[in-house]
């Protein structure tokens, strides 16, 4: 039987089910036992890159310094909607130190966002690219931007998705303001029947705001031409994706483009695609014959590199007296921004509960604002905010405990396709979380406490995909001195990928983690892995590393057999050493063994195996929030979050806790503070900086308690890992909103839950 095979691979990446051909490993390994029986996997070892990061010696794209490097800055449209009448760069060109300027007049016409161009004279949002300048310093480039004269024809604009749907609204694109020209729909069962069957029907609207990714490290690239070969150091979540996009944009063979990313200060989805800035820098670098660094500032980050789209959701939920869900309905509107982007948020409603009749209608809408991109659990954070509040409302109407209600409507099989899950321990997560928050202490009647500070407890469930899948490859190299390298075309976003890959290899090879060097994020040297998104990296790449390491063990056994001239059963291996007692005691370290081999480097290629057929693969979890609301000020203090998750196997207790902490804190930012404010009269963003756009601080961070209820998912892969990065954020806003209701007895249906809304709700 062939050991590798090409199959049709299908799995969820962010919101989309992708299907592709992929070569998979057909080797079957004995499932690992639970983590308490493993040596390295699951242990909370500190990050291998920790020292580099803490000491400042880690080099990010921005830190790359090349001889004769120059600096580029972008002129962005100051208006929400305009057409360029004329551009005059002559004054800017004369500034000493300015080396090159590109605009739509002199740059090649490169397609972008499907129906637009790298430089498009039709500018559709505040932040759209008008020109890019390279100069000997960033300061000079900035001065040059000011010296470029642009005459704009101002066009009518719209910055509210609901207004953009109106007949007389200004149009951004020929197709009209609805993305793809029509809503996306989903139906199962019969909604009308479901509504009729019910004893209680609730209809409620919920709104969520636009959230900006704002990763710590700004987007940016350093680009360098060597003849017709282009090297790009980029802050990206997908080196291969950037390579394809940039090569296509510049008309280069992919083999001429190399993309490198070593360290990264976060992306949250905003770095899943190539940036215009990279291509602009490459064009400038080509014309001026010098390397170019382009780095966005915080304002540009807020305007032009993505966001979580807002949502205006109308939900209907129907239940029988005894708390059985009979129908769920959602109509949603979301702002794609100025160019096509996904805005849907129906998956929670479609997949969380066992509900036979479901109907969904979703509109993605163009508005004159920055384009949306995938953002940590796209659709799900918005969707759960609405769904889980509706669920609480329904439970209250039929006098049921919200947790009991959720258990009653528990989906025992995947409700869209009626297939089993590889594993689902949501019930355990519910019970562990409820116990730990003290669920029975919640107010039996919402808002019933007296006194100015009212406390409350609430919860939310979550579902996500995160099973990953092929293709994902890893090369494992064993050097003559026994040192090991893992090389994979994946990328560590700051999540700990370097560390967990080394742990997996260390487990199999039985050598210390420190002996293993992990090399990621280089398209010229590493075998292919997918982009790091959709919480798929650990789930996709660790099985490939295990496959590579197991093959290396086989190879080494084979070498030991040859060297000792003994059958396998006479040879023992432990802690990096082969030993035998026959005919006399002999010991060989893997380094010594490697030195006996003719080749100086032993190499194996590991492949992710196929996902099991006929199963749904999902991560599950629940969060429980305890809040205190000050009724004098309307301020919500989140006191505690309990997170309970089924995510398969824990690879590293520290990095998983980091992920969950980070997800919850980001979720709190979305729940309480963060909001892109567009001025309704001018269409311009008012808070494109870090003190008006408020991300949470450590002071706003509650006590967080984490429970992992799963041991492993052996059906899924040889490491049994499901993703956690996105699941960590999904339930937080809904849990907080439900807790606030429990505290004050008023339901706040729009995010963020700011004090003014609470105070006004309390006054009414």
């Amino acid at each position, binding site marked *: 039987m062939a050991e590798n095979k090409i199959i049709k691979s299908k799995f969820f990446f962010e919101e989309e089910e992708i299907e592709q051909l992929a070569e998979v490993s057909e080797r079957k390994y004995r499932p690992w036992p639970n983590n308490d029986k493993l040596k390295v996997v699951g242990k909370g070892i500190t990050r291998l890159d920790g020292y580099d990061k803490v000491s400042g010696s880690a080099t990010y794209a921005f830190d790359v310094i090349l001889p004769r490097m120059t600096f580029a800055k972008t002129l962005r449209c100051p208006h929400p909607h305009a057409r360029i009448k004329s551009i005059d760069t002559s004054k800017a060109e004369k500034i000493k130190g300015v080396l090159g300027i590109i605009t739509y007049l002199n740059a090649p016409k490169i397609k972008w966002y499907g129906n637009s161009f790298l430089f498009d004279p039709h500018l559709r949002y505040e932040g759209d690219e008008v020109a890019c300048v390279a100069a000997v310093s960033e300061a000079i480039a900035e001065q040059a931007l000011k010296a470029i004269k642009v005459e704009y024809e101002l066009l009518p604009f719209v910055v509210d998705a609901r207004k953009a749907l109106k007949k007389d609204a200004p149009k951004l694109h020929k197709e009209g303001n609805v993305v793809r020209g029509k809503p996306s729909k989903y139906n199962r069962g019969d909604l009308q029947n479901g509504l009729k069957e019910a004893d209680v029907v609730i209809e409620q609207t919920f709104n969520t705001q636009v959230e900006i990714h704002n990763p710590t490290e700004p987007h940016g690239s350093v680009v360098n031409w060597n003849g017709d070969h282009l090297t790009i150091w980029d802050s990206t979540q997908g080196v291969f994706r950037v390579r394809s996009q940039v090569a296509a944009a510049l008309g280069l063979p992919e083999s001429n483009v190399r993309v490198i990313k070593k360290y990264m200060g976060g992306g949250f989805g905003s770095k899943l695609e190539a940036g215009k800035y990279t291509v602009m820098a490459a064009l400038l670098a080509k014309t001026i014959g010098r390397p170019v660094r382009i780095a966005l500032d915080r304002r540009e980050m807020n305007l032009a590199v993505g966001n979580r789209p807002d949502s205006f959701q109308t939900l209907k939920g129907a239940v029988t007296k005894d708390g059985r869900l009979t129908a769920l309905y959602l109509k949603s509107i979301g702002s794609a921004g100025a160019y096509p982007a996904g805005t849907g948020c129906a998956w929670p409603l479609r997949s969380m509960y066992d509900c036979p009749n479901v109907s969904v209608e979703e509109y993605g809408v163009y508005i004159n604002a920055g384009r949306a991109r995938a953002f940590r659990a796209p659709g799900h954070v918005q969707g759960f905010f609405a769904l889980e509040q509706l669920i609480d409302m329904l439970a209250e109407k039929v006098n049921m405990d919200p947790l009991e209600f959720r258990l009653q409507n528990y989906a025992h099989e995947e409700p869209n396709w009626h297939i089993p899950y590889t594993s689902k321990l949501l019930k355990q997560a519910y019970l562990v979380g409820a116990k730990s928050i003290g669920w029975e202490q919640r107010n039996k009647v919402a808002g019933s406490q007296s006194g100015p500070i009212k406390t409350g407890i609430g919860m939310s469930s979550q579902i996500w995909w995160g099973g990953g899948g092929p293709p994902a490859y890893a090369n494992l190299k064993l050097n003559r001195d026994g040192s090991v390298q893992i090389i994979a075309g994946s990328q560590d976003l700051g999540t700990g990928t370097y560390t967990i890959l080394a742990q997996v290899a260390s487990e199999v090879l039985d050598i210390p983690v420190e002996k293993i060097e992990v090399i990621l994020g280089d398209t010229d040297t590493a075998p292919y892995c997918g982009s790091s998104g959709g919480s798929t990296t650990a789930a996709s790449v660790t099985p490939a590393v295990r496959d590579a390491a197991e093959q290396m063990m086989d190879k080494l056994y084979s070498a030991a057999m040859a060297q000792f001239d003994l059958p396998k059963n006479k040879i023992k291996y432990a802690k990096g050493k082969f030993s035998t007692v026959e005919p006399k005691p002999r010991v060989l370290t893997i380094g010594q063994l490697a030195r006996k081999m003719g080749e100086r480097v032993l190499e194996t290629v590991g492949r992710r195996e196929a996902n099991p057929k006929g199963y749904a693969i999902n991560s599950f979890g629940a969060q429980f929030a305890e809040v205190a609301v000050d009724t*004098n000020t309307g301020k919500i203090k989140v006191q505690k979050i309990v997170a309970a998750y089924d995510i398969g196997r824990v690879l590293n207790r520290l990095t998983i806790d980091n992920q969950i902490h980070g997800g919850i804190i980001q979720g709190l930012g979305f729940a309480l503070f963060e909001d892109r404010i567009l001025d*309704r*009269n001018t269409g311009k963003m*008012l808070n494109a900086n870090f003190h*008006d756009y408020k991300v949470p*601080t450590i002071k*706003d961070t509650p006590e967080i308690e984490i429970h992992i209820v799963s041991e492993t998912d052996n059906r899924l892969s040889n490491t049994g890992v499901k993703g956690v990065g996105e699941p960590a954020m999904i339930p937080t806003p809904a849990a907080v909103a439900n807790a606030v209701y429990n505290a004050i007895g008023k339901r706040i249906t729009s995010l963020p839950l700011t*004090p*003014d809304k609470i*105070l006004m709700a309390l006054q009414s």
Partner: protein
Amino acid sequence: MKPFVYHQPKSIEEASVLSAKNWEEAVLFAGGTDVLGLLKDGIEEPKEVINLKGLEGLDQIDFTKGKELRIGALVKIAQIAEHPAIKQSFPALAQAAAQTASPQLRNMGTIGGNICQRPRCWYFRGDFHCLRKGGDECFAVEGENKYHCVIGGGPCYIVHPSDLTVVLQALGAKVTIVWKGGQKTVPTSQFFVLPEEDLYRENILKPGEIVTHIHIPVPDSKMKSGYLKFKERDVWDFAVVSVAASVRIANGRIESGRIVFGGVAPKPWEEETLNRELKGLPLKDADLQKLKALALKEAEPLEQNAYKIPLARNLMLSLLKELMPIIPN
């Protein structure tokens, strides 16, 4: 940022001469925590920047028992927050200082810069040519005005962003202003101005005038003071609304007192009627409730900031309750 000439004067007189042109020409620079932002964002584009940090004698805190506390304009906010005598005798001031901005900003920012800082209105700080910047439109009045003023506004609707000013006024502080050839000392209530008095500046300073000292009378043992700052985020946030109070309590009554609000008006906001009502007020909950109805009575909220009125009133009550033993009804 536009290039500029950088001066480091050694004397107040020299600094005064250098800055005596007009606001567009020259800007004073103390800790720079505000000015640097203004320069980088192109809100102010002066030809000259005059660093005050070289001026001698402005970085002292002098405390004369029974008389006054004198704080030099270059004293850092962190120093005020940590000063033992200030913590003891002027707790409101220490509290306001400790809640200002973030540790880094408090270590750089000075008290002089704090009271002279420019507004945070997001149109003012953005690329909007609004009234205050010499344009002919206030974008806030019919725009995004959640954080704008509810009283004292028009035709511009900023709030004064400083925490310290609110407390300084409640404590009856005075500000000494020096220029080449002259000086004067004015109470803070006369230092700050409303937009209807001067649309372009937030205080009475003229080019060439420099704040050198803040003077605060030392309270007697029956005086109590406090400051409550409401911010959306727990740290590193300007006040949405704040309130400072200093009250003298004797025989179960408030003998006299001052209440000043921040975050509601273009300057620290004090109401005569409210202060008058404080005189002789019994420490009873019901009487305090009356005060609540009186505070900010003339307020005219904009579309998005009506919440500031109950917020300010509730904060006032919470503060008074913190300062005094209140008898429940």
